[in-house]
Structure formats: structure tokens, C-alpha cells
């Protein structure tokens, strides 16, 4: 099971990084979201995996590590804040500049070369 979780984190990271390296804002935002999943699951998994337990006293036989869960819970909410901020930035820059590229064009470079 641990292998599958580790692979899942790796796949989320790889997909996230690939999208992060795209040249337009929207895929980059999606890439950031995927990286957020990866990081959250990674931190959560650092408490080691347990099935059929709960981080609640007296609710189940075993108690899982509550600390990474508390950390990840706030991380999820904060990452919502971050994602929405980045989305507004992306939208604002698109509306202002008329393009949603993330790279700044140097003077002399054709703005839409290679399209």
C-alpha cells in the first residue's frame, strides 16, 4: 500500500511540475493545485498510514497521528486562499495585458512567435 501512496504522490508531483512549466497562466494554476495535493498528501503521509483508525479518542481501537492531519487541514484551507489569489492575478493580468503568457516578452521578440 505504501508503494501505491508514494507513487501517487510522485505522479501528482510530476503532473504538477509539467503543468507548471507551461507558458500560460491557467495550466500553471492547475499545476500549482496538483503540487498542493502532492505536498498535502506527503505531509499527511509523514504521520505514517493507518487504515480503520481515527484521530479521535475512544472512537476506534487505534489512534492515528493527529498532528500531520491538523497541519494539513489548515494547509488545505490556506491553499484555497492562495489558489484564489493566483487565479485573480492571472485573470487581472490577462485583462490588463490582453495575453495570459507568464513569460515577459523582451522588446524585439515577436509576441506571438511560434504560435
Amino acid at each position, binding site marked *: 500500500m505504501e508503494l501505491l501512496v508514494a507513487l501517487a504522490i510522485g505522479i501528482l508531483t510530476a503532473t504538477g511540475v509539467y503543468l507548471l512549466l507551461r507558458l500560460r497562466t491557467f495550466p500553471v494554476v492547475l499545476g500549482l493545485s496538483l503540487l498542493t495535493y502532492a505536498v498535502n498528501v506527503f505531509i499527511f503521509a509523514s504521520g505514517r498510514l493507518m487504515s480503520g483508525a481515527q484521530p479521535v479518542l475512544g472512537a476506534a481501537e487505534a489512534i492515528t497521528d493527529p498532528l500531520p492531519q491538523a497541519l494539513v487541514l489548515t494547509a488545505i484551507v490556506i491553499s484555497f486562499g492562495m489558489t484564489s489569489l493566483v487565479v485573480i492575478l492571472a485573470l487581472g493580468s*490577462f485583462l490588463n495585458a490582453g495575453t495570459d503568457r507568464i513569460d515577459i516578452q523582451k522588446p524585439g521578440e515577436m509576441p506571438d512567435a511560434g504560435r
Partner: protein
Amino acid sequence: MSLALIAALPFLGALLPGLMIRSGRNACAMVTLSITGLALAGLLLNAPAVMAGETLTEHYAWLPALGLNVNFMLDGLGFLFALMILGIGLLIIIYARFYLSKDDPMGNFYTYLLLFQGAMVGIVLSDNILLLLVFWELTSLSSFLLIGYWKHLPEGRQGARMALAVTGMGGLAMIGGMLILGQIAGSYDISVILTQGEAIRAHDLYVPALVLILLGAFTKSAQFPFHFWLPHAMAAPTPVSAYLHSATMVKAGLFLMARLWPVLSGTPEWFWLVAGAGLITMVLGAVIALFKDDLKALLAFSTVSHLGLITMLLGMGTEYAAKAAVFHIINHATFKAALFMIAGIVDHEAGTRNIRLLGGLRKLMPVTFTIGTIGALSMAGIPFFNGFLSKEMMLEAAWDTSTLFAVVATLGAVFSVAYSFRFVVHTFMGPVRNDYPMKPHDPGFGMWAAPAFLAVLVVLIGLFPQQMVGPFVEVVAGAVTGGHPHVHLALWHGLTPALYMSAIAVAGGLVFLALQRSLAPLWDNAPRPEAKAIFDAIVEAAARAANRITDSLHDGKISRYLAVFTVVVVAYGAWAFTGGTHSAGTRELLPITLVELIFFVLLVVACIGLILVHRKRFVSLIVISIVGLVVSMSFVQFSAADLALTQLTVEVVTVILLLLALNYMPKETPIESGGLARLRDGVIALAAGGGVAALAYAILTRDMSLPSISEYHVANSYIGGGGNNVVNVILVDFRGFDTMGEIIVLGIAALVIYALVEVILNGAASRRLMNWVPDMPQAYDRHPLMMVVATRVALPIALTVGVYIFLRGHNLPGGGFIAGLVVAIALLTQYMASGFAWTQARQRFDYHEIIASGIMIAVMTGVASLVLGWNFLSSTGTYITIWPLEEIHLTSAVAFDLGVFLTVVGAVLLALASLSRIGRRAGQGVNLTAMDVDPSAETLNTEGER
């Protein structure tokens, strides 16, 4: 008074002038005066002890591990300088009150002045060279503010920048020198370093340390070849020039050389560097001063020259020269401050300080003339004025050193006499002219009181040197040399070589004064390096080089930065991995069940699908929400119900947000990178993913190497936090402080989004939005009947669920975060189903207020614990039962959780409502009733399904 308090008073008082200016200029000046006066009185209380030869010390630990302590000491040397800084400061404050015009912001002036004063007092009272460095840099900064006080003058700004650059670079060098010095001595305390002189001078690093420290001292004290910044700093208001360049800023370098004199002096390196630079500076400054037509420039170069004189005396390394240096520091401060103020008065009353436009002021401004003459005669070294006595001592010291020094020092004295006489003769003597820019007359008493007081001192010290300052010079010289020198100051020493040299100087000076008018054109046309042009060229070259480096590293290609960053992190991880030895993990692994396998396959398919379809943005949104759902379900599978609930609800609001934003953005991503670039990105991505997967696997297959602090939280959750849901207790109790920070961040993020939308709605983006044409088919019924009804019915249910999740959170999965998200979604569905305007009209509270009240409630809960004498955010609680509900555990942490709840609701709704405002600007009609029909959609949507 405590030494720390004397140094701190000006800093503490620096806020007051800025506030008191509202009560008028007099109140502002009075409060500044009383602060400095208080510090001066505190200093004078220590005078008896200092005069008895004691050294007062005070110690406070700051960062003892680094050797940085707030240690103060007060001996004769520190006392002399503190007295000058505070005493002349007092006079400058009075003078500035009458000098500054109504248009000058006086509050700012006095605030800067007090900051500078505090920094200077800090330097001279420090008993720790690291602390001294802190104050040293503070003087550079605060003098920058003072020199550039007249912000509207380009010369003022340039002069301030130049002073900051030169003294700042010197300060940087000095930090290096001081650190070496501290390392050699084994302590950064000056009192310890002073005992280590022998060892330091014998050390291999003595010369580097000496050079670096002298760089700091020479730049500050405007010694050759760094003398060029001082005249440019004359663009400052005259009170600033009088303060900085007579008694304080430029004397800081001298102070440092005097302070470290017992440690660093006595070697050939010290002699040639310090005495040599001093000698050159003395002559050079005097020659240039003779040919300056601006009164303040003349005084500026004269200051350079006199600083050179004192530096030379310190460089000679003999006890007699040190005594002369101390005496001249006192004398120079008195006559030079007076002369600067006189130059300011002439400028103020005659409208110019250009000597060529002046002359004959003797009859028009008799008081100014008298004071100015006394100062100038002292500066020239004429008997019965204090400058004569110390100049005699200087000439004698030069005579004792070598013939070269005697000849060159006499030459310097010749020019010194010439420019001093010129100051008087060309300004005040001669016939009265009728072309002054303004009608010159003596100023009011307030303005000439301060220079008059100093002129009285000049005469008294000149006539009765031993009675006035003899014992004081003895104490100070003792502090400089570390010995017990005997000082006897007298007017008449007999027919000594120095007297003949003085006579030559006066005679030669008169000759040069007579020749000045005819020599001036020659001097003006002589080729010489223009310091400001060189300085500007260097600064410009440095700026160009910095820009070139920045441009090549920081070229605006964010995708390249991200790629470089990822590759570096992966390579660093790989390097760390290959550098150690490894064995496989031994932790017992969980079996793979069918459900988990299905999740995994779903995730893999979704991720690969996302890569394939990411150009179609709507489809990619659907796919990424599959990933979110799988992650939520995995949290359920691995015993994290709280996380699953949070992830699920966040997923909903995130997707709504992305959909709203995407509406106004291109719906497809064009193909821009070629196959090779995509392959490269793929390799980078796979390397990163592989690395993270390996790391995760390594962690998951091992037990924790150190005992986890989680045990503590589990054990104390019920006893200490009063709850069974340990995750929630950690959030609202154990780590409540963190949570408070997090909800504040969330609130700020929402406010930033609001502000960004405000910006977007103005300017280019707004025009683009108003011309926006929908590029997707629009629905005919924007608010479908069934959806409106369903959401209205669902609202109370959803809110109840929210309350339930909130209340049970302390003992079962739930809590403020999740409840907040649930309620936010319930309200969002109203916006989606019934329209923005309809819902907004029924929205009773502003989202900003909801966020603010949430954060306030959370903070107040913590403060309440403090008031009750517990730790911040400690909780207490009790179980209550309200029929017919089940037992409710009511703790004070619930109040905190309520704050979290409100902040989350407010932040989520503010973010989405801000996006809706963009939609309204884009011309989406506002519905006043729910269930409306959009008539325009019909024409737009001719090719739609309907």
C-alpha cells in the same frame, strides 16, 4: 543618569517633534530642546566621577552568544564627545528654530536631528564595537535624512546620496576590520580590547584590520582621498552643516581613532597612514578653501583641513600630540560651529553667501561681524583666541616629528590664515554695496544667541586656557592615551620654534590674501580631477554592471526560473542521496485492498488525462476535480475524516472559482513549445516526481527515528483541551496561535483579492471587460426554476448541517474550518441559482465585517485567557445539555472556533463575490427578481441546442 538612558533619550524623544508640530513651531522646538537638555543634564550628573578619572560602565546582554552586548562606558573621551554632541546640539536646536522658514517641515527636521543625535551619543558611549557599528550605521542613515532635508533641491539629494554611499562603504569596510579586531582580542568589548594592544599590534592580521578600520574612520571624517563628499553635503540647511561638520558626524572618525589609539597606534603603518593622510588633507583642504567663493564651501574645506590636522596629531602617536589633538577638537568645535551659524545668518539676511557678491557688511550687521571675526581669528590661530593655543601645540608637535612635517604643516597654516582672513575681509570689510540680493541687517537675538555663546567660549578659553579646560583636557588625553599625561595650557610658551612658525603663517597668510583675487582665475583654470564627476561615473558604471547581471539572470521568463529551481532541488536531493549509505525500510507494510487499487488507477488515469487534455481548459477542470475527489477519498481510507471533509468542501469552492475566472479567459491553451521543449519539461517533471515518490516511500517504510510529539497531544487532548477529536483540539488549543495566524492570512488573502479586483475594474482591464463578448453559448434561462427552488429548500438544511458540524467538532470530525466551508457553499449555491443581485440584496452583513469579526473573536478569546491569568488561548469548558439535543461540550475554545468559522465564511464569499463583480462589469445583466429570463441570450445563441 544611566548611560543607556542618555543614549536612548534622543531616540525616544524623536517621535515627539513630529507630533508637537501640530501645536506650533515654538512648542516643537521647546520639546526638542527639553529632550536634549534632559540628556545633557543626565550626562553632566556624571561629570564629577569622570573628572575624578573614573570609567563608568553598564552592561546589558543582547546576543551574548555572538559577543554583541549593550555595554556602555563613559570615560573622559566619551564625555567630551557626548558633551559636544548634546551641548552644541542644544545650540543648534535654538538656532534652527529661527533659521528654518515657515515652509520647511520643522517637525521632520527635529525628528531627524534627534535620531542623529541619539546615534552619535550611542557611538561615543558604546563599550562594544558591534554595538558601536550599529550606531555608526545609524548615523550614516540619519545624516542622509538631514543632508537631504531640502528634498526639492537636486544638490541636496545628490549630496545626501554621495555622503551615504561614501560613509556607508567605509562603514562596511570597518565592520570587517572590527570583526578581525574582536577575533584577535577574543572579545568585542572595547574595555577588553584596550588591554590587548601589544598582542593586536604583533598579530599577522593587524595591518588588514588597521586598513579596514581606517577606511571607516577616513570616509566618515572626510580624510584624503575621501574628502570630496563633505563639500557636497553643504547643500543641507545651515543648522545641519553646523551640527554635522563642526561637532558630530565628521568627528566620529576622529573619535574612533582616538578610542582605539592605545591599541592601534605606535607602529610605522599607523604613523604613515594616519599622519600622512592627515597632513595631505590639512594642506589640500586649506588651499582649496582659499579659492572657494561660497562661504559654506569655504568653511567645508576648512573643516576638511582641520580634521586633517587632528588626524595628523593622532597619527603621530606621541602623548604630546594626543594632548594637542584633544585640545584642538574642543577648540575646533567651538569656533567652527559659530562660523557655520554666522555663514547661515549672512545667507539668511543678505540673500546670498557668495563672497563675490558680499562685502561691507561690517556696518550693516555689527553683531554678526563681531562674532564672525572672533571665530575667524581663532580659526586663523591668532593669539588670545583658543585656536591659537592648539595650533601652536600642533606646530610644535610637527617640529618635533621631522623637518618635512614642520615645513608642510607651516604651509597648511599659511593657507589657513589666508582663508580665515578672507572670510572676514571679503564678507564684512570694504565699502557698503548697494546690490545685495536682500537688505542685510542683524538677525533677532534668537538667531545670534547660539554663535555668540560659542564666541564667548572661544575668547575665554583663549585667555584662560588652564582655568577653563586644563584639567578637562588632562582627563580626556588620559583616556585617549591610557596613561596619566600632565597638561599645562598657557598662552605664553616663550620664543619657541612654533611661535616663529605661527608668525610665518600669519605673514604668509596676509600675502596670499592680498594675492587671492589675482590667483583665483589661475586656480579656476588649472586642470584637476573633478571628484563629483568621477564619483558619478563610478556609480553609473556600477549600476550598469548590476543591471546587466540582473537582466541576464532575471529575464522575465518565469518558466525558466521554475525549471532551474526544480532541477537544482532534484539535483541537490540526488547528491544528498548518493552521498550516504542506505538500507531498505523495515516497517510493516499495509496490504493493498481493491478499493485502494481502484483509487490509484483513477488517479493515474486522471493525471495522464490531464496532461493530454490540458489545452482544453474546461475539460481539464473536470479532470482535476476527479483528482481532488480521489485525494479526499484517500483521506477517508487512511483514517482522516476531518481532512476528507475539508478537502471535499475546498474542492467545491475552488472549482467554482476557477470556472468563474475561466469564463473571462481564453478557453484553450495554444501549442507554443515544440516537441523537444515538451520532452525536456517531461524529463524534469518525471525526475521531480520520481524523487518525491522515492522520498515518500523511504519515509513510509520506516518508523520515526525520534519519538513524535504527537503522543503528548493525544495524551493531553481530553485532560488539557477538553475534547476527544485530537485534530480539532490541536487546531483550537495546542496550536491555536498557529491557527490564529492562518485565519489572519486567509482574511488578508481575501482582502487582497478584493483590492485586486478594484484595480482590475479601473484602467485597461475595465475597457476590455466592457467590450467583452461571450465566447461560449449562453443559457436562455440564467436562473432555472428547478434549481432556485431546490437551493432555497436546501439552504436551511445545509445551514443546520453546518451548525451541527461546528458543534460536534471538538469531539468528532468537524469544527470551524469545515463548518465554515459548508455554510459558504450553501450561500454560494444561492448566488449561483438566484443570481448575484438578488442574493446580494438579502445579504445583511458585509463580508469584510464578517472576516474582521471572526479574527477579532479569535484574538479576544486568546486575550480573555491572558486577562484571566492563563496562557494565551488556554481553554476551559463544561458539558451542557439542551433538550432535545445531545450533550454539547461547550468550551472557551468554541468561541475561538467561531472566529475561525466566521473568517472562513467571510473569506470564501468575499473572494467569489469579488469575481462576480468582474462579471457585472462585463455586462452581465442584473436580475432584480429570481427566475428571470435573459432576452439577449436568444439572439446570441442562434446556433445553440435550443
